[in-house]
């Protein structure tokens, strides 16, 4: 079953977005840890859209769709910000000495660590990000 949520691009909506994702994760039969991963990934994605895509809060909307199937959750996030190229984001250098540590890029890093699929695409209508989490996944486990 697909559920949709549209929110203005503002950080105070992240909690609502996480609750929306948590409900869908439960419908898909994901466990609490897997639900946390989905919430983290979607929070980071929406934060990046607001901060880097729209260039600030209240400058555009974010459209979310969750499709829950037994054992699998697919989350689609759309925006109308400028085209996003994930290859343009440098990886955080987390093994560097503290003074040289760059923690930017951590959001995308997290998404790739905890989700089974992270796919970005852009067209004239905007950007689409598809995130997939599977119940039998070991992604993000220690």
């Amino acid at each position, binding site marked *: 079953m697909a559920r949709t949520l549209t929110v203005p691009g503002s950080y105070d909506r992240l909690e609502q977005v996480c609750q929306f994702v948590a409900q869908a994760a439960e419908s898909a039969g994901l466990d609490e840890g897997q639900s946390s991963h989905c919430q983290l990934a979607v929070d980071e994605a929406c934060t990046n859209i607001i901060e880097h895509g729209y260039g600030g809060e209240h400058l555009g909307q974010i459209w979310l769709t969750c499709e829950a199937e037994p054992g699998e959750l697919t989350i689609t996030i759309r925006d109308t910000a400028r085209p996003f190229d994930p290859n343009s984001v440098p990886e955080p250098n987390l093994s560097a000495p503290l003074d040289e540590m760059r923690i930017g890029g*951590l959001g995308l890093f997290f998404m790739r660590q905890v989700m089974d699929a992270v796919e970005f695409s852009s067209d004239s209508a905007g950007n689409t990000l598809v995130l997939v989490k599977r119940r039998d996944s070991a992604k*993000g486990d220690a």
Partner: protein
Amino acid sequence: MQIATQDSGAVSVVAVSGRVDSSTAPDLENALKKLVDAEKTQIVLDLLNVEYMSSAGLRAMVSTLKSVKRVNGDLRVANPSPRVEEVLRLAGLTSIFAIYRSREEAVGSF
């Protein structure tokens, strides 16, 4: 998110509760910056009641850690929930922050 700060000897204990995300992390960073500006650079961040933290919270923590380390202070973490500790681990930050199982242990480590 709520923040309560109290002194325990020379150590400042910052107890945070609720969600630390992009909406609330700036408040956490400001609260920590106030301590650093007041030359209170031995800080324990008690995360017992933090139910959720995203990379925005980690940025605030790393930024503060850099500031206090420059003046021989430290930011030490107490009571992270399994969920928060996982985020620290995913980011590779468990080796950067000293993490303690209780507030008393963290305060006593200074």
